[in-house]
């Protein structure tokens, strides 16, 4: 067998990112399978993974996992480049931006639950904004905002609690020396 010309160096962190993305994509599929009373009201289970990545590996890795999750998830669901894909992407980007700022909150006072709620609101905010600018150019879309806000609060709290529990049950291992250097 001929040796490959290009040699890709795969680091341990690449493996971690791949596994975490797989988990996030899997949870996106679970999300899509849950029946929803209103398009857009979803538990957003994949955000549990994003939160854990943010707090364990840093913001840069969280951006990777989140965007790969949106890409792979939309490909698997046949939504790639459909309006739903752009809505998901705008929500993910805005929530990453908010998480980027939110990680500077004092950790003693604001835990994963706060970050999760803020990210959930940013998610819904990004989607509503894109929907208003592009899909439904009428202020009527904002009439759905209270329902989306309520869903963001409830699911944001639950996801944050799950992330906090998982983080508490799996303390940082000694081998994970690359923590917080992203």
């Amino acid at each position, binding site marked *: 067998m001929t040796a490959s010309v290009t040699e890709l160096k795969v680091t341990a962190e690449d493996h971690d990112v791949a596994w975490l993305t797989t988990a996030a994509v899997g949870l996106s599929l679970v999300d899509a399978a849950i029946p929803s009373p209103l398009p857009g009201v979803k538990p957003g289970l994949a955000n549990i993974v994003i939160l854990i990545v943010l707090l364990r590996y840093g913001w840069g890795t969280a951006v990777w996992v989140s965007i790969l999750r949106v890409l792979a998830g939309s490909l698997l669901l046949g939504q790639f480049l459909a309006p739903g894909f752009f809505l998901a992407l705008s929500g993910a980007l805005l929530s990453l931006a908010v998480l980027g700022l939110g990680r500077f909150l004092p950790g*003693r006072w604001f835990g994963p*639950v*706060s970050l999760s*709620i803020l990210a959930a609101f940013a998610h819904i905010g990004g989607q509503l904004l894109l929907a208003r600018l592009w899909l439904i150019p009428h202020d009527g879309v904002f*009439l759905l905002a209270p329902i989306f*806000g309520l869903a963001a609060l409830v699911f944001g709290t639950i996801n944050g609690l799950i992330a906090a529990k998982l983080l508490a049950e799996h303390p940082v291992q000694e081998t994970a020396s690359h923590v917080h250097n992203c």
Partner: protein
Amino acid sequence: MRWLALFRPGDWLVILICGGLVGVSFPLLWQGGFAERAIVRQAGQIFADLDLRTPRQIEVAGPLGNTLIAVETGRARVVSDPSPRQYCVRQGWLMHPGDIAICAPNQVSLQITGRTRRYDSLSY
């Protein structure tokens, strides 16, 4: 109780603030919808039905003189009116569906309407 231990003090604050925002947003957005049109009446007849998305000014002639009405995006007001007490002018900007400014002496009224019509009066 184990789950409660996962909350940090600031988390409660975030929940409280976000819950407050959501609570306020329901009545704010769901009562009467958004201001969409301004209806100008002169002597009880509809003089103009204006879209609140396009800023403009119109003058309405009444028995005392001209009433000047200004429309901006999402709001409208009576700018000037010959009425002696200036009630309709002093009402300022009208921006919620159902808001109305009546310049009775000059027989001009300016009303904001939205997607849904709230009742002004009911009788049977």
